[in-house]
């Protein structure tokens, strides 16, 4: 017999463990920075495993910190600080939150901000405005900025591009050696890569429980649980956490515990998480017997260029693997590749309808969704809606407008069912 959990974001054992991990990683960051560690700020897609090759290089991820801030309800507060400094409200809300936090000395941040960096490392394939965002600190604080130049992929990555990226990794390593006075040890990095590979494997196990009817997970679980992937990449703790998360989910499924036990509508979400709405949105969906069971934002982790399954590491050159992983997110790829992965998720997970969340703050994710929506609907015969939101600025979100559309989607699914 199925047991009902409270709908919405569940504070499971894994949830509690994840909170502890996050708290600990942010506190360690501050502590080690005080103890003279070399601090880098990175874009989420910059391979953190490289820093594990050094004895005392630590990294912070402003995007992740901004998401956390939005989730904790201080997104618009921090954004407003940046707007007061002249940064337009039309700019990415992650950037505004981060700039607002950084120039206000970490005040109002759930993590007391981030320790000031010695080096900024952005990249331009996941999101090219990150280069501009990091340039703000580069200019204001006169801190070196290394731009990882990664060609965008309309088709799978070319060998020439791979070599180009690897050459930049090598130069980045040399730069950190020079700036930090520390020696890089490739074996330490190799260990980090192995932990990432294992973490990704366990992550895929976890999101695989969406296949079950009712689904063993919600996309909201995946949004929350992706956080340590950004802050603890390459660590054994991360791999172990995801193993326990997948085990715990398996146990729940076996015991008949599901996030939306009376699930009637299985949905997919396309875009960054609505950080300021996780609990509210998931609860309201559950009341409608709807579950967003898959999200392009989180199923892409560890997969490449339109594939749904993880990219396999052959155990050879770890830099090569990391260069390939530059495409593991959604945004470094064009519509054809993105659609391929989405089709696969829809088929595997028996999705009934799609929500394309058009995100004012993330043009790279959103500007192609209108065609992608058409393509997915036509090819797979499932209804889809587009909603308007902002991933971290709740001032640009309307719950009423969003649910009007989502309810229309559910009615559409229902009507199609009745028509057979």
């Amino acid at each position, binding site marked *: 017999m199925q047991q009902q959990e409270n709908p919405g974001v569940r504070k499971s054992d894994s949830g509690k463990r994840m909170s502890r991990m996050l708290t600990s990683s942010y506190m360690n960051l501050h502590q080690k920075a005080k103890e003279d560690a070399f601090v880098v700020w990175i874009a989420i897609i910059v391979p953190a495993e490289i820093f594990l090759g050094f004895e005392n290089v630590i990294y912070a991820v402003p995007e992740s910190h901004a998401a956390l801030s939005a989730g904790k309800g201080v997104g618009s507060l921090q954004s407003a600080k940046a707007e007061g400094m002249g*940064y337009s409200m039309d700019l990415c809300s992650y950037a505004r939150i981060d700039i607002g936090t950084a120039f206000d000395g970490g005040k109002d941040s759930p993590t007391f901000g981030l320790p000031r960096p010695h080096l900024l490392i952005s990249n331009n394939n996941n999101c090219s*405005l990150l280069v501009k965002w990091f340039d703000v600190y580069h200019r204001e604080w006169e801190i070196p900025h290394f731009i990882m*130049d990664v060609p*965008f992929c309309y088709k799978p990555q070319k060998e020439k591009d791979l070599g180009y990226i690897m050459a930049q990794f090598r*130069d980045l390593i040399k730069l950190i050696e020079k700036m930090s006075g520390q020696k890089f040890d490739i074996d330490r990095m190799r260990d980090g890569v192995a932990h990432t590979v294992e973490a990704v494997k366990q992550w895929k196990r976890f999101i695989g429980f969406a296949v079950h009817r009712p689904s063993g997970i919600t996309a909201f679980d995946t949004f929350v649980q992706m956080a340590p992937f950004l802050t603890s990449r390459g660590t054994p703790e991360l791999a172990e956490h995801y193993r326990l998360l997948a085990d715990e989910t398996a146990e729940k499924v076996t015991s008949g515990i599901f996030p939306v036990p009376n699930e009637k509508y299985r949905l997919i979400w396309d875009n960054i998480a609505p950080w300021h709405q996780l609990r509210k949105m998931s609860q309201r969906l559950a009341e409608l017997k709807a579950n967003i069971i898959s999200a392009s934002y989180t199923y892409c982790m560890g997969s490449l260029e339109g594939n749904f399954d993880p990219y396999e590491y052959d155990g050879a050159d770890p830099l090569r693997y990391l260069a390939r992983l530059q495409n593991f997110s959604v945004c470094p790829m064009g519509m054809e590749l993105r659609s391929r992965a989405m089709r696969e998720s829809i088929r595997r997970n028996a999705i009934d309808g799609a929500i394309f969340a058009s995100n004012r703050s993330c*043009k790279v994710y959103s500007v192609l969704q209108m*065609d992608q929506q058409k393509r997915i609907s036509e090819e797979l015969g499932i209804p889809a809606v587009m909603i308007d939101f902002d991933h971290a600025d709740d001032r640009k979100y309307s719950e009423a407008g969003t649910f009007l559309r989502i309810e229309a989607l559910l009615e559409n699914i229902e009507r199609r069912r009745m028509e057979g």
Partner: protein
Amino acid sequence: MNHVNSIINKINRIKDSGEKVIGCFPLYPPLELFHSMDIIPVVLWGIDDVLAGVSESDKHLQNYVCSVARYLTEFVLTDGGRLLDGLFMYNACDTLRNLPEILECGLGEKDINVPLFNIHIPAMYTGQTDSSKYLQDEITGLVNKLEQEYGVSYSEKRFRESADLYREMRRLSLELDALASSGMIGFGDFSRIIHEGYVVPVDVQVESLKSWIKNCGSSPAGKKIPEDEHRVVVSGILPPPPSVCDIIEKSGFTVAGNDIASLYRSYRNHPEITGDAGKFYIDFYQNHFPCTTLLSTSDRRAKAIMNLIRERNARGFIFIGEKFCEYEYFEIPFIDKMLRNEGINTLLLEFSIDDNENIGGFGTRIESFAEVMSG
């Protein structure tokens, strides 16, 4: 619609002469290369005030996309697609990089097949990994694809000749810019002349510039050159709409210089002439006048702007903000602060897709700015 028709007519005229036409975006494509291979490049930028609406574009792009991309899409999906023999783009902002596939979708719905070419321009700071070989390979790859698609061929001699022509065009643009700076030609007219050059063959553009320079030189517009405190530099992705250029000048300003992407940033620098296209474009992109759209040039931008202001003896700076252009807006607070510290007055005007018909508010702000500058 007259201007659109004029663009269409211009492209038709090129095609009537038997030439192939490739539409390019964003602003700094390898024009010389296309020209040298008998493909006439037209730059699809600054057509934002010439289309009646964006109904086709609205089927593909959200309303928070900048007007540059929306109008560009509108043009390609209405008239441009049938006219152009190819489309070329290189990596730019997060919006534009998605356009190739969107345009393919839109054109596909109309059963129009336009070959699309793209290259990646290295975007990293000086002192990082040497990207010369990468860019050289990209150019070689482009040459091969053009040869294959159009049955044309590359020659060093032809490339050098084309590069010579473009250098002349840039030199003349600078000369006309200097005339605009001294008030001999209105900034609105000047912008229009430069923009018209984007859709004609370069030799026609050269002749047009020569003619305008000659006319300006013999007719100094009969107006008094204003005092120094009324000299401003305008900056942005695009020049302000013609009506706003008029307001700026009627408010007593002279546009002493511009840091406009489709104007000064485009013609300020020119590489050494060489027959090696790869080498030419390494120089072209590495030493390009700083532009927000070229990530690798950001470090040099503040200094370049200050040099321009000093050189033109300007006392004010007007940001022409293109709404939703993140590349521009990220840099505005820093540049604004720097200029204020240097005693330069600044004004930010923001233009969105509907603002060309609604300029009253801009007039008030510009007039107030004039009062501030008059002290």
